């Protein structure tokens, strides 16, 4: 199965626009994205942002759901450690992230596709660089042929 995936990548790597789902916390990263806007920074339009109050709200199912529905990458944005608006929600998020990273790897999803970034409200430029970098990396990895239902891939 992997082989076919690789081939497919080589073919499509050219005109391929990755689809990325981004979960941003309301207090840091979402504001950073707004700041990037007000300061007119430019980055690729591949990401679709979904706002949650805190990165701690992120249920692993959300990420799996995003991949299952055809996302080529998932980006989680939260406050820097120690800066969480809710004291420690981002730590909870970090814990789940590490577990989940293993799981998705098992399912054949490369590292670059699933990222957690700490971006504070004042780091508009950082958000920009992360966006650019993420899109580049995922574009390099090619499309994620994973629209197949989760459990199927899981067993293969």
């Amino acid at each position, binding site marked *: 199965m992997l082989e076919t995936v690789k081939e497919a990548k080589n073919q499509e790597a050219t005109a391929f626009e990755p689809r990325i789902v981004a979960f941003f916390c309301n207090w840091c990263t979402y504001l950073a994205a707004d700041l990037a806007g007000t300061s007119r920074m*430019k980055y690729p339009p591949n990401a*679709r*942002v979904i706002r949650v109050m805190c990165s701690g709200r992120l249920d692993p199912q959300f990420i799996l759901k995003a991949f299952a529905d055809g996302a080529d990458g998932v980006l989680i944005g939260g406050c820097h450690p120690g800066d969480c608006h809710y004291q420690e929600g981002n730590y909870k998020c970090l814990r789940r992230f590490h577990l989940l990273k293993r799981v998705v790897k098992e399912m054949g999803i490369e590292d670059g596709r699933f990222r957690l970034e700490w971006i504070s409200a004042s780091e508009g430029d950082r958000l920009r660089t992360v966006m650019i970098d993420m899109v580049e990396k995922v574009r390099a990895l090619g499309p994620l042929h994973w629209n197949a239902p989760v459990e199927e891939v899981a067993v293969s």
Partner: protein
Amino acid sequence: MPERNGAVRVGVYVCHCGSNIAGIVDCKEVAEYAAGLIHVVVSRDYKYMCSDPGQDLIRNDIQEHKLNRIVVAACSPHLHEHTFRVATANGGLNPYYMTMVNIREQDSWVHTDRQAATEKASDLVRAAIRRVVLQRPLEKARVPIDPNVLVVGGGIAGIHAALTLANAGKHVYLVEREATIGGHMAMFDKTFPTLDCAACILTPKMSAVKAHPNITLWAYSDVEKVDGYVGNYKVRVRRRTRYIREDLCAGCQECIEACVYKQPKFADEFNQGLGKRRPIYLPFPQAIPQTPVIDRDTCIEFNEPRKIRWLTSLSQGAFSAPRGQCCLSPHFARLWKSGKCKKTCLEACGDRHAIDFKLQDQLEEIKVGTIILATGFQPFDAKRIPYYGYGHYPNVYTSLEIERLVNASGPAAGEVVLRDGKTVPKSIGIIHCVGSRDENTNRWCSRVCCMYSLKLAHLLKEHTGADIFNFYIDMRTPGKSFEEFYQRLLSEGVHFIRGKVAEVTDWVFDPSEEGKLTLRVEDTLLGVVRRIPVDMVVLSVGMEGHQDAQDVRRLFNITCSTEGFFQERHPKLAPVNTFTDGIFLAGCCQGPKDIPDTVAQAGAAAAEALALICAGYVEQEPNCAYVIEEECSGCKTCIPLCPYSAISFREDNRAEVNPVLCKGCGTCVAACPSGSLQQRMFEDDELFEEIEGVLVHA
């Protein structure tokens, strides 16, 4: 939950925001696309949705087309969510049947490809429609506001804010880190452009603070802990001991005279280390409170080593022993601290018994509804620029040192002399923008340096009659009667040279430079390099955030720019608000500014606080978690996760969320294995729909 999907009628509104959005996103196309989606009854694009006609559009459509869900694609919800909720409510719908799509800050403003941007907008709108279908009607919870206010920082900003609130009959706790209030303004000699003396206009306000029945002043104190939320903050303040009881001390200052140190010996922080003080001292004559302090680091009664607070070491200036330029620093004092003193101060105090070496720090727990941060700035450390020679050449001064030097009650009683203590300078160079507008130090313009440099030029000329050279990159005098002041200086014959000084050096090119400091600079207006020998160099240092700004930020749970200034909620429309409700900013902790602006901002902060207090309550976003009882298995996973211990465990083996304590982070919801915990406004099914919505092409 089918009943909520039944008879759903969605209205979609795509805002052009003039050309801000329409310039990149094809709003018409987005609206047309939305019109074709299921549940959508009305779909329009409009120039300004936030305008009255725009809001009316929503209201009328709700009534006309029996809409029961609204989607507005416009700017960031942080800006206009409230506006459109109100509009929705005006139409007779529950405001939480409205959802916003951010196609400005996070789309049109950050992308250049029209097609891709439009596509993105459509995706987001599609997701919002699928989400709004599931949204529930919600009611905001009301939380009463505690009328007491905490003001942190006793500079002019804190003082003005405190007085304003106190005069409005609210009780204010004013907490100041130093031994006296007054901040930097108390150190200034005169204030630009009117040249009225800083002390004359500040000290009355200082004593007013002391006298005011509604103000509790805690100087020499630090805020240690902040809990709670808007309207109900719980704050712990540590009042560091002065070893003198404020309630018993009459401020006679006889203890100071009586100190075993007959001559003041130690670097005097208030005078930037130019003057000397005793171990027991009052920062300056008009200090408020009028209670002296005993400094552990230098008083021989205490002999254990202590770490020197940053201000002390900073105020040593460049010239602590052994260079012998200035006075002994605490480091050296400690060497002969015996730990056994005659305690002549105690005798002097007599039966007042105000002095007590056994006194301990006091902890105070207070409840306040709102907090105003006015923690101010710290001057740029001139030592960071080696080629200006501060700390190397004795006669290089910082502007703050000069303020003290020209001040009549300063260390030199207004006699402007060089560090040798006698020579009056015949020529003085004032270098602007020291540490400011420089990628290697601070990038920003500190806003006040041009004007205070002009002021110092005037004062120094007045005091010494010396030739004064101002070296500026750009002369910035944008303020009421600032330009006039510049003109006045020009007419006074002060030299103005446009160019950033490249070096302050003692190497001699021409015999006339022997024994002087030479400034090498390109006079960019003449286009030639000049060497100008002077006796005294003044470095107009810029402003930067306190080095502990990040800790303070964490303490109050607000945001802070990488430059170390606290971030306002909106640069134009919410300049004194922070992203944390009930916490406001005043003065230079938010960014460099002069005294008039600081006072104005302090007033604004006070007004914002009053507005909350007078309303009597705040409405809280109804986004707290709740338990679906029949599905809770009682596994207790959620309980330890909650940072506010809002979740309790009932006898009937079910978890319960206390809506007053819950702040709606949703961490517990994400962890619940049975899915019986949910968060209002962010229900699992709503988010699933949104995820599907952005990805699945309809």
